[in-house]
């Protein structure tokens, strides 16, 4: 099964929960950090690196000598990445989403395939777990193209039948949706504050159309107020676990330790969470499609 650990609000404890789940997971499991703008799962799992490679996306490169300024390229581009400005054919590489449309429609061969670096893919092993992460090039504005390549690369380092835990980026926009869209279960980590509740509501709205089972982990339980609990009740989404607000957890985190390893009380909580998640994925007889 594949589990994505996501959140609306950033800084709620996605990585704390993801690293802990990987640590206690009862079956063979791989770890994937898809928060490519600020990956940090490796800071807790301390994987041994096996390899890394740079990732690129195909973008157009202009050959003005062949351009007849017909504008077919700029008409098909929805992102203003290629434009005819007077008698100048201009490509804005950072705007390009890599669809290849302009390359396909240019009748003159005035656009050729070039590339933009997206970032790098790094893989290795964390204990017994295959580990993979992406890291965006500084200045790169788009995450999903790199995330797709990280996901594709996973099949080269981990056998397909083992479980997968994904550390997703925060928020509810394209990167977050991209990180959870292939998961069997989505775990949303939140905190019992008004900000936590507001963003959890956004996450429910963003991810519900995917039709996947969702569950909530309330981190720093005991602070703030009960709005997140009321929200979960209203939306009929189970609170799967509560992690207390505890100095020992913060200390373990600050030392780069897996909290479920360092704090015995949390280990029990996360083990129970893992059992519930496995139960959520157990397909009912009619929906064997998941496999």
């Amino acid at each position, binding site marked *: 099964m594949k589990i994505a650990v996501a959140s*609306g*609000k*950033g*800084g709620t*404890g*996605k*990585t704390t929960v993801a690293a802990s789940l990987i640590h206690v997971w009862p079956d063979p499991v791989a770890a994937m950090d898809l*928060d490519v*703008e*600020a*990956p*940090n799962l*490796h*800071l*807790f799992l301390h*994987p041994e*690196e096996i390899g890394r490679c740079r990732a690129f996306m195909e973008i157009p490169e202009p050959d003005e000598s062949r351009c007849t300024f017909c504008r077919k390229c*700029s008409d098909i581009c929805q*992102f*203003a*990445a290629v*434009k*005819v*400005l*007077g008698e*100048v054919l*201009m490509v*804005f590489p950072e*705007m390009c989403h890599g669809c290849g449309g302009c390359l396909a429609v240019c009748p003159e061969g005035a656009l050729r395939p070039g590339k933009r670096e997206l970032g790098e893919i*790094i893989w290795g092993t964390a204990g017994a777990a295959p580990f993979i992460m992406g*890291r965006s090039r*500084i200045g790169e*504005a788009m995450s999903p193209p790199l995330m797709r390549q990280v996901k594709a690369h996973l099949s080269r380092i981990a056998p397909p039948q083992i479980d997968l835990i994904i550390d997703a*980026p*925060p*928020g*509810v*926009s394209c990167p977050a949706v991209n990180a959870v869209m292939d998961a069997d279960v989505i775990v949303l980590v939140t905190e019992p504050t008004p900000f936590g509740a507001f*963003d959890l509501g956004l996450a429910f709205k963003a991810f519900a159309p995917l039709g996947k089972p969702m569950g909530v982990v309330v981190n720093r339980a005991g602070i703030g107020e009960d709005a997140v609990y009321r929200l979960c009740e209203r939306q009929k989404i189970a609170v799967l676990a509560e992690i207390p607000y505890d100095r020992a957890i913060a200390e373990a*985190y600050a030392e780069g330790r897996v909290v479920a390893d360092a704090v015995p009380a949390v280990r029990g909580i996360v083990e129970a969470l893992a059992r519930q998640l496995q139960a959520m994925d157990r397909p009912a007889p009619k929906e064997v499609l998941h496999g």
Partner: protein
Amino acid sequence: MSKIAISCDEPSLDAQVDPRFGRAAGFLIVDPDTMTFTYQENGQAQAMARGAGIQAAETIIRAGARAVLTGYVGPKAFQALSAGGVQIVQDLANLTVRQAVERYKAGDIALAQEPNSQAHGGGGRPGAGMGGGGRGGGGGRWR
């Protein structure tokens, strides 16, 4: 004198110059010799999540403008306008269109040599993780 585009939100010489270039409501395309004008909507650029400045630049170039009078121009719009041979005059947001055109005709303006606004659009991170140690390098042996 060739045509000038001025960012503004209504088809009138007495409209206020719109400080935004890429996300301006529209552009008055003015013939400075006769002060006749047409109004060019900029809705196509306004609808874009990113790249509004590039789109607006294309719009006014296709409308035949050889100069633009506006408030703020970002780096990509600046690049697009420069490629299209369009003169750029910035920081005119406190004027009416008519005043801006008169200033331009009198030569009482400075042509911009560089953009006066940062790149924006596109969203950005909604809230960083607490860890964030990997950002910009510095992730131990993994960087």
